[in-house]
């Protein structure tokens, strides 16, 4: 069963589709923060084995359609 995550962005352009990117996401089971290396797509069709990635803008407004995410690597929980 696909897991659900979300991430916060200023604009959708912050998310580069199809490229390996480092991203801070939240596991929606308990809202724990995770830093990951992942590939994201706006369409689930491009990542059929991916998990669900909800997108929220900086004041919490939810983007209406979920994206897809494939986590390549969990990065250490580093403090920036």
């Amino acid at each position, binding site marked *: 069963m696909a897991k659900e995550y979300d991430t916060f962005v200023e604009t959708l352009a912050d998310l580069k589709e199809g490229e390996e990117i480092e991203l801070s996401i939240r596991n929606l089971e*308990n*809202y*724990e923060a995770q830093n990951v290396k992942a590939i994201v797509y706006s369409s689930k069709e491009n990542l059929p084995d991916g998990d669900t990635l909800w997108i929220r803008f*900086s*004041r*919490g407004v*939810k983007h209406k359609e979920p994206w897809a995410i494939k986590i390549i690597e969990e990065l250490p929980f580093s403090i920036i």
Partner: protein
Amino acid sequence: MAFNDFREFIDKLEKEGQLVRIKQEVDWNLEAGSIIRKCEETPDGPSPLFENIKGYPKGYRLLGDPFSSGIKKAAIAAGLPADMPYVETHKAMMDLWDEGLANPIKPKIVKSGPCKENILKGDKINIYNFPALMLHEGDGGRYIGALHTTVTKDLDSDWVNWGCYRIMIHNKNTLGGFVGPQQHMASMFSKYEEKNMPMPFATAIGTDPIVQAISFSSLPYGVDEADVAGGIRKQPVELVKCETNDLYVPATAEVVIEGHVLPNVRMDEGPFGEYSGYRASPRAPRIVYKIDCITHRNDPILAAVCEGVPITASHTVQSVGWGSGIRKALRDEGLPIVEVNLVPETALFLCIVSTKVPYCNIAERIGHIIFGCKAGTYVMKVIVVDDDISPYNLAEVFHAFATKCHPVRGTHTSPYATGNPLIPFQNLEERLWSKGCRVVYDCTWPIDWPAEIAVPPRSSFNSIFPKHIQEKVLANWKNYGFKD
């Protein structure tokens, strides 16, 4: 007689009909928050005590906003009768705050206390073991600090600050939070950060209600909230030393989180539905707390406010605490003010003051004293009315505002004031940099107007009829056929 702990206060709220025990399972993820919010939006409604929180052991409970939706519960917290009229209660509470500040009582240090019943360090630290709520849909995370007292100490003196600054969970032992740039914790932290030193902190959740209430206050720089809380309680607050640092916390607290704020480190925190009634500030890099230890009572009772549109605990209690500070600042300057109402319904952005008018433009002076004092940090609008109008009578105030305040001569703006990232009317750049603007509305009659010809007589029952006619009408009111 002051309450000894959170549990005594909860029992009293229940006896006064101000609490509902919810035994049905409630989800920490939005359901509990929405119940608290509904209670906050119900005038003088009871507070919810969640006794069965999804995924948490029996006995782990959470009290939703114990001061919400009116002043009754705050009155109970202060030991005042719950059935006193609002205005009397509000004034009595402001007087209590004044007395506490004027007659502080130092805390009593005790060797141990109920908060030490369980001590968790090292691998046993996992903040997710406590039912922190996901309060609003779209918040940046679960907030373990949504009604609490965070203790920090000044680096250069013995000054200890208590404050309530929102705290979000990043992971099991890392928290993040928002602290406004003008707040005392921020000024303390800047000293540590300049020297690249971690700042010890301790956050107490579920304390006696005066400890909680004073943590919302805005006391002058250098004043210990613990001493003022003792003054209000008329007996000292009992404090116990932390396990991992030299701070002291209320001995009866339900949960204590000890740790340190990391210097020169920021992580994205928020957004959060705030006391302004909006989620105005974005997710942004903010301070980071590392947890070193958690202590708690058996079967702990946490607490949370679901901030938003008034009236929540913040609005009720800060209306008293900040209001008394503003009143004191004005009195200390010798101004002939009569009453001050920092209006809870306006999320504390509007303060109304009634005054005698011995000289021209006193309204502007009142406004600038408010804007310049600590308790007025977040007041953006001031309405000044003559002394024949009560600032608590909002109908009369709005009538005066609409009819007596000249749109040009009566409006005094301060366009380059300090602001606050949480203020909705500021644009994005102003919120980012805390750039504000403030305004005073002068609703008094100008004293240089000839009273006999320029000041319009007020046409109300109390002012436009002769006294003997008023008395006759009142004496005969029932005879005319009216009920009351």
